[in-house]
């Protein structure tokens, strides 16, 4: 693959990752968030597949397929099902979207500054978009900190995980298949456990608003 085309495509898929994260902060309805998360998973899989094709590495390509299946399809489906069971709740975050969006801009600047030393190390197109992965990590933290419902926090956690995976793929050019498999299954397990937990919380308290859980009940 031509180098310029590769760097262009890497830039575009990194842009899709970034855009989906920004829109996740912006649009906070449950079904919308889950759709954006699935889009982000597809973008991440595209990025990994691009790296695989560029290095002519079959293993990375297999990892891309795994990422696509798990983050693009399976996790969103799981989240949608638990969201459906609980009915569409409007997720009103702790922070109004305008302030959150400006915070995202600040976080992006911060990520850029922080990952500057990393970006200088390499010269390829993949090292240049490392700040995007960092931004994803920070946005994930933001979503985790400001989400009010369990599902919203789960989405934040998955964005955080996507960010970490992005940085890993961009810096190391892919991890061995076994390691990646382990990480992906870990994430899947976490989501499953949290899903069961949300179901239990809802059964006991009627809603998954975590604000209601601050008091002890006898």
């Amino acid at each position, binding site marked *: 693959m031509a180098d*310029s085309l590769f760097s*262009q495509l890497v*830039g*575009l898929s*990194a*842009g899709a990752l*970034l*855009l989906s994260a*920004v829109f996740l902060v*912006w649009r906070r309805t449950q079904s919308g968030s889950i759709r954006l998360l699935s889009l982000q998973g597809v973008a991440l899989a595209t990025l990994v597949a691009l790296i695989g094709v560029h290095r002519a590495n079959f293993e990375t390509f297999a990892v891309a397929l795994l990422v696509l299946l798990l983050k693009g399809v399976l996790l969103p489906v799981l989240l949608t099902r638990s969201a459906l069971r609980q009915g569409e709740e409007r997720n009103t975050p702790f922070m*109004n*979207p*305008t302030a959150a*969006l*400006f915070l*995202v*801009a600040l976080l*992006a*600047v911060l990520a*850029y500054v922080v990952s500057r030393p990393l*970006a*200088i190390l390499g*010269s390829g197109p993949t090292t*240049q*978009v490392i*700040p995007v992965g960092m931004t994803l990590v920070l946005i994930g933290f933001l979503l985790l900190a400001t989400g009010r419902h369990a599902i919203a926090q789960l989405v934040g956690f998955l964005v955080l995980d996507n960010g970490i995976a992005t940085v890993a793929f961009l810096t190391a050019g892919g991890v061995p298949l076994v390691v990646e498999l382990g990480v992906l299954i870990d994430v899947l397990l976490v989501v499953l456990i949290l899903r069961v937990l949300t179901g239990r919380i809802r059964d006991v308290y009627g809603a998954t608003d975590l604000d209601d859980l601050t008091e002890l009940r006898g």
Partner: protein
Amino acid sequence: MNTSAVLLALLQIIVMILITPFLIGLMRQVRNRLEGRVGAGVGQPWRDLRKLFAKEPLRAPGTSWIQAGGPVLLMVSSLSVCALVPLISTLQSRLIPGDLFVVVSVLLLGTVALALVGLDAGTAFGGMGSSRHMTIAALVEPTVLVAVFALSVPIGSSALGDIVRARIVDPSSIISLVSLLALVALGIATIAETSRMPVDNPATHLELTMIHEAMVLESSGRDLAWLELGSWLRLGALLGLIGSLLLPWGMATEPKLLAVLLGLVMLAAKLFVLASLLSVTEVFLAKLRLFRVPELLAGSFVLALLAVIASYLLEAR
């Protein structure tokens, strides 16, 4: 070089004046057809303008010279923008370059003129409209600046003509990350600036949420005609700018008759395509609550800022 640039600027002004009413007519017609109505035809805005220009302006007692001067100022600002933005050719007069900051400040001049016209008669609606218009303008202008700035970083020049010329030379930069982010931000900013659908409903009168229509309520006759034509030209010029940045092909890079003619045809085609697209998307959108508009504009500002960050990021190779 310089005289031809001035002549081209004049040509742009004349062409834009001729085209934009049809552009507005087309947008209304597309909307009407999609909503199952017959529509008044593409030429209706021209007929409206002719009618308004023939009427004497009625000015309420107590209004000042702003009621007559504001519309002219808006018109002058819109015409200057049409001359400065590269629409037909990328050639620019050396005297007044089509610099990004010049264009935005000239745009702002028109915004202020329109807001003053709204305030002048002292009616409740006018004041409300002006206040909203200024709120939106304060949020939009930085976005326009930052978005185009992101495009100017890789080129090293803030002249719009240079930016567009660099895109003709290297078309692959159009689908780059920076350019896409900046264009989305610029698109949202254009919609807000020209009071189009999710921000303001251009088709309603006497609604508590209106912005543009509230400001022009007190104007009539010639004054109203200038205001309407000025606002349409703003929309046309901004759409044209997006068209030039998105699809720069066919624009004249040298002052030759054939190239200019091709640029002219391409400009008309680009404008009509973009306007129809805008109109089709508007059919599917509901107007945003006024208090959620800053959210939309903050979003577009963040996109523009991300574009700037990305442009520095991809520059550091």
